[in-house]
């Protein structure tokens, strides 16, 4: 349809197409538009030379600037580390016991701890630090602590771990299995007595006797537990492995005992300090004076244990 003609009204040539009487004018583009177009082409050529652009067999052309997204990431990570170094130095300098008294620094430590928690701890303790009763991972939000809940004790526990080898100062204890020791009637009496400690069942003399003979050493005469050996308090509402009678009987026969890696071997002391601050801040943190945990025999120097 090369029916080009000059439009009378505008004195402009048409493109030569016609649709139901509608024609299109071939209006010239402004010259500056053309130059902008050429400019863009020139820019694109320059861009392809200095930046990675053309895909080859194994990788794209590298570009004369040597830029790469990995390189940029590394640079940004380095810059972020440098930015954090000042706060980390401050946190490193302060005694962890004094940390909660400095609200600003504490807030920064908690924020840093929250980030580290998301990377290292959520696999067991959950992203909300609520643990799991089914799997037996302790809830860190509540006020019940197996090994102690003041900030320094938390730091110690994180550094040295629980019931895992490779650390001389680890939290270590074991509850003996009672499978085959009690007959079903004795077991029922004992479990009922354990429940009675928190007022969930009536006390019974037989169970109390078995408890006194076998359990008092670690769990205490009133079920108050013992944090030096991580023996749980039995006289409260919180049950790590379940609080029904069946759960308790199961635990007596074949005790489950949790483990935690010693993070001192993997994380630097400042990160552990921040993690301790975060766990402490979750709502169940205890004051140093309140805690019943005696100082660990070997003083923690805050350095990672290799």
């Amino acid at each position: 349809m090369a029916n080009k003609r000059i439009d009378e009204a505008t004195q402009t040539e048409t493109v030569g197409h016609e649709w139901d009487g509608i024609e299109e004018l071939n209006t010239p583009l402004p010259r500056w538009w053309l130059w902008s177009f050429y400019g863009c082409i020139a820019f694109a050529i320059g861009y392809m030379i200095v930046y990675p652009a053309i895909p080859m067999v194994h990788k794209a052309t590298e570009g004369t600037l040597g830029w790469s997204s990995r390189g940029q990431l590394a640079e940004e990570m380095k810059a972020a580390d440098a930015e954090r170094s000042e706060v980390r130095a401050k946190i490193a300098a302060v005694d962890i016991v004094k940390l909660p008294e400095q609200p600003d620094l504490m807030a920064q430590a908690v924020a840093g701890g929250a980030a580290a928690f998301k990377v290292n701890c959520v696999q067991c303790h959950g992203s909300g630090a609520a643990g799991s009763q089914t799997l037996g991972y302790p809830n860190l939000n509540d006020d019940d602590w197996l090994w102690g809940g003041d900030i320094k004790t938390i730091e110690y526990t994180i550094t040295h771990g629980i019931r895992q080898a490779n650390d001389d100062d680890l939290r270590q204890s074991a509850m003996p299995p009672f499978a085959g020791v009690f007959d079903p009637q004795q077991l029922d009496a004992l479990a009922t007595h354990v429940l009675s400690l928190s007022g969930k069942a009536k006390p019974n003399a037989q169970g109390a006797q078995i408890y006194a003979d076998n359990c008092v050493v670690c769990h205490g005469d009133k079920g108050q537990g013992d944090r030096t050996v991580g023996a749980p308090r039995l006289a409260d509402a919180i049950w790590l492995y379940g609080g029904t009678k069946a759960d308790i009987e199961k635990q007596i026969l074949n005790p489950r005992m949790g483990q935690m890696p010693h993070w001192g071997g993997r994380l630097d002391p400042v990160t552990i300090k921040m993690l301790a601050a975060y766990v402490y801040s979750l709502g169940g943190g205890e004051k140093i004076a309140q805690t019943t945990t005696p100082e660990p025999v070997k003083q923690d120097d805050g350095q990672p244990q290799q």
Partner: protein
Amino acid sequence: MDSPNNSTDTVEQPVSAASAKPSDFTKRHDPPREPAPVKLYEKRRAVHNKRIDGPFRRFKWFVMLVTLGIYYITPWIRWDRGPYAPDQAVLVDLANRRFYMFGIEIWPQEFYFVAGLLIMAGIGLFLVTSAVGRAWCGYACPQTVWTDLFQHIDRFVDGDRNARMRLDAAPWTWGKVLRRGFKWTIYLAIAFWTGGAWIMYFADAPTLTHDFWTGQAAPVAYATVAILTATTFVLGGFMREQVCIYMCPWPRIQTAMLDEKSLIVTYKDWRGEPRGSVKKAAKNPGEFGDCIDCTQCVQVCPTGIDIREGPQIGCITCALCIDACDKVMKDIGRPRGLIDYATLEDCKREAAGETPRPAWKTLLHPRTVIYFGIWAAIGLGMLFLLGTRSHTSISAAPDRNPPYMLMSDGALRNSYTVKLRNMESRPRKMEVVIDGLPGAKMWTGTMDYADAKRKLVIDVPPDETKALRVYVISPPDTKAQDFHFGVTSLDPQKETDQAEARFTAPGDSE
């Protein structure tokens, strides 16, 4: 009537859109032109507009003075807001997320005020367009104002139209190089000043000026100035009317909003045609119209169009051609207004020999009244909201993981992030209470559980939102239920607010 919207006309081939479908008042008398040679790209034809004086030119001077004055001076106006807020009258504080405008301070969540202002500006433009046509384009648009300014620079450096045309055509001698260099230096200075003024709206102007010249300002400040200097230099100094004709969407939108009742700048062809010189007209009385074809209207036009070809997209209705034509008409003793502001309706009336309607009738017709009504309603609504808004508010977000917490004594604990907003520029004490949830107590992340209460008094810093981690503990066997956090400012204002919250417990189906 025919539509004046014909976007195909160009600078080189100014064309009457009206002639595509001849209207009853626009008739063409010029001989048919030779078909233009086909060109794919169009070179710009430089516009060397002539100096003119007259009422519209003086109005343009006035508008230029006011708009440039507002633009350059506003950031330097001080406004005392006390020790906790900046003292700059107009400040868009992006870093602290605050927008200050004299006595008004806007927080990000109140951005609907700014949206409202923008809507008002939009409807205001509709109103102005339907009443007086493209007045925005002609007088107030930054592109027009700066182009006008730069054209005055041209005149100042190179002389008026004829001198400039001669210089343009002249070979590149040292004199011309020096002249051009001088002119472009002035362009650049104005462009730099323009870019520099812009950043002053985003930081304390005196501090930023000092930092800028001592190299301590943020890189974004230098980048912004560089970009705005470049755009001002290029758009105002060189692109000029091409921005209006090729780049700006607004003329296209406006042509859709103009109707036969809108005022536009128009050539009254029934009075002017056929054109003939004064001499010819004297020889043949009654044969020629009022237009003597002196082309003064074309020479003064800042976009280089010929208004006598009818309404067209290149016309920004700056009315300088009216000034030019009126002057000529006065000189040759003919009545003014051969080119004039008129509505197309009135043009028809005048052409038919009737008297045009009075100006107030032109301005007041249903469309303008409705636009004004909407515009004023939004303005009044925003003023009311501004006057009655509270400067205290509270919000509460529950922790979802874990939703609730069993404590060792069987009590239940929920955690919330409670935010207290103090929009006053002074520190305030606020009382936070638990409203509902019998037996519950709360404490914050920086308090001790032992001090848990139902009421807490919190110090909130000036002009800030304070986020608190709040633990609410409720006796054993509490059922899941809704309650409120309430806040009261402990000052004479006694502003209150409350936030809904839910206490989650085992068995909560939510």
